[in-house]
């Protein structure tokens, strides 16, 4: 008994099918193409998840927030109306917290825009007095209107706005970016499908004669398709692993740079364990997609052969 034959006998029945055809390698670029696609998918998915987290965090912070501005040029009148409004709002139904924002906080908020330096004074500027309200539920337009009506008599210069309303354009932009990320992922999935279809067709042409022989010997379409599926799975697994590593490195670097900004909204965009599990599952989805595509492509082509 020769060594190869002995080895062959020990490989077992599972390996029988793999020797029906010579290795139908779908082309050496395949793992690289899949690696690029998976890396881009990982980055797009991570971006989408980060944006979702940021939006969710901001929404949670602002959902019950209401800001009351007392817009009056006269400081005395402004403070008087603010105190009166605060007294009413503290006892308004649904209000769980009401606070007059201190002047020092306002100065700190304005400093980046006005360039205040030590010794400068902005007391002369007609800055509105602010009351920060926290409601026991979402600040719906109806509740905001009710609050506005309640303080209209004591603070005619008051403007009442839901805090979430100020960020509506931001939320809309985030939503658009999330759709964009989803669209990119869909496009990349289609690119994967196209790459696998092209490679499978190319491999079918290359091995057409062998496939015909296997058919003539009684080989079934699923038997032949499984050989191509295995190759597609291997290519996708190798490419997927490379792509995941590349994408993960990019995410980590980007994450560190964004977290260095120190912005509250950006901090809320951090990826959690569930997010990372979803990202890690992307190469697995890529393998499944490649295998399914290879199977359908090969079976479809084989049906055209007798």
């Amino acid at each position, binding site marked *: *008994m020769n060594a190869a034959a002995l080895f062959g006998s020990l490989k077992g*029945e599972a390996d*029988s099918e793999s020797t*029906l055809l*010579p290795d139908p390698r779908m082309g050496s670029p395949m793992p690289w193409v899949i690696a690029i696609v998976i890396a881009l998918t990982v980055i797009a998915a991570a971006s989408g998840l980060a944006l979702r987290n940021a939006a969710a965090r901001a929404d949670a912070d602002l959902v019950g927030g209401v800001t009351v501005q007392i817009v009056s040029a006269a400081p005395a009148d402004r403070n008087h109306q603010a105190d009166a409004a605060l007294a009413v709002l503290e006892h308004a139904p649904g209000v769980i917290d009401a606070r007059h924002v201190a002047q020092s906080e306002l100065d700190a908020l304005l400093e980046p825009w006005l360039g205040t330096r030590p010794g400068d004074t902005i007391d002369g500027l007609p800055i509105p007095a602010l009351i920060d309200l926290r409601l026991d539920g979402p600040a719906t337009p109806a509740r905001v209107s009710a609050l506005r009506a309640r303080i209209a008599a004591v603070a005619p210069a008051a403007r009442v706005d839901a805090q979430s309303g100020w960020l509506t354009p931001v939320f809309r932009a985030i939503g658009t970016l999330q759709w964009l990320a989803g669209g990119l992922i869909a496009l990349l999935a289609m690119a994967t499908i196209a790459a696998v279809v092209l490679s499978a067709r190319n491999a079918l042409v290359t091995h057409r004669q*062998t496939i015909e022989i296997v058919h003539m*010997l009684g080989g*079934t379409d699923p038997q032949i398709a499984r050989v191509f599926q295995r190759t597609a799975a291997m290519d996708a697994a190798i490419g997927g692993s490379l792509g995941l590593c590349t994408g993960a490195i990019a995410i980590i670097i980007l994450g560190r740079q964004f977290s260095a900004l120190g912005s509250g909204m950006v901090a809320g965009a951090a990826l959690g364990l569930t997010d990372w599990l979803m990202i890690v599952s992307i190469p697995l989805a890529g393998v499944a997609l490649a295998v399914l595509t290879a199977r359908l492509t090969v079976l479809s082509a084989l049906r055209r052969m007798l």
Partner: protein
Amino acid sequence: MSEPDAEIVQFDNVGLRYGTEKEVLTDISFTLYPGRFYFLTGASGAGKTSLLKLLYLAQRPSRGLIRMFGTDAITLSRERLPGFRRRLGVVFQDFRLVQHLSAFDNVALPLRVAGVSEREILKPVTEMLDWVGLADRSHARPPTLSGGEQQRVAIARAVIARPDMLVADEPTGNVDPDMAMKLLQLFESLNRLGTTVVVATHDVHLIRKVPESLIMRLDKGRLSDPTGALRYPPRRTTPSFDDPPLGFVLR
């Protein structure tokens, strides 16, 4: 005269044309019975290979009816086709060996297709290669084999699964007379074990070596029946103990 056995193949008014060309086979009608040895003769271009393609289900006819193993072969579903093909052994004129596989793997291919385990494949394939004189070439790939060696591998592959019907297209065209006789002996032994053998050849000497054979002759796509083979199948013969190593094979 005894009643003929149930037919293994029945052609009824079969015609074949490629594309819009004129028919290469016209009004072909015949019946093949189990355990008989048939020669298909005819000049080059007479349509032998085309008829064999219909026999081994590589081609569908343009018209007519074909029944194989009691089933309409023309309307056979794609799912059932592999099962029928596994009952056939085919020696192609151009061998059609898988170039990337060794002689061993080429011969083992029908068994692997049938799902036989590697453990069960080793012995029969090794013995079959030994019998066709290629034991020391089992690892050689087809491009490194001579024409005769490739033909022997092709024949070993065709008979390894002990088919119900063996179809061979010029199977001794590339081997020396001694090997041709040996291969013919293999076919006869297989035939004695019950396999129907159909050999396409224009080698008259080969035909004379099998006196009980039945001859079908193709002439410009039409079939003649010089020995009455298609109407009066002779009696079945029994296997001898000098048979080549076919006892181990499947079925």
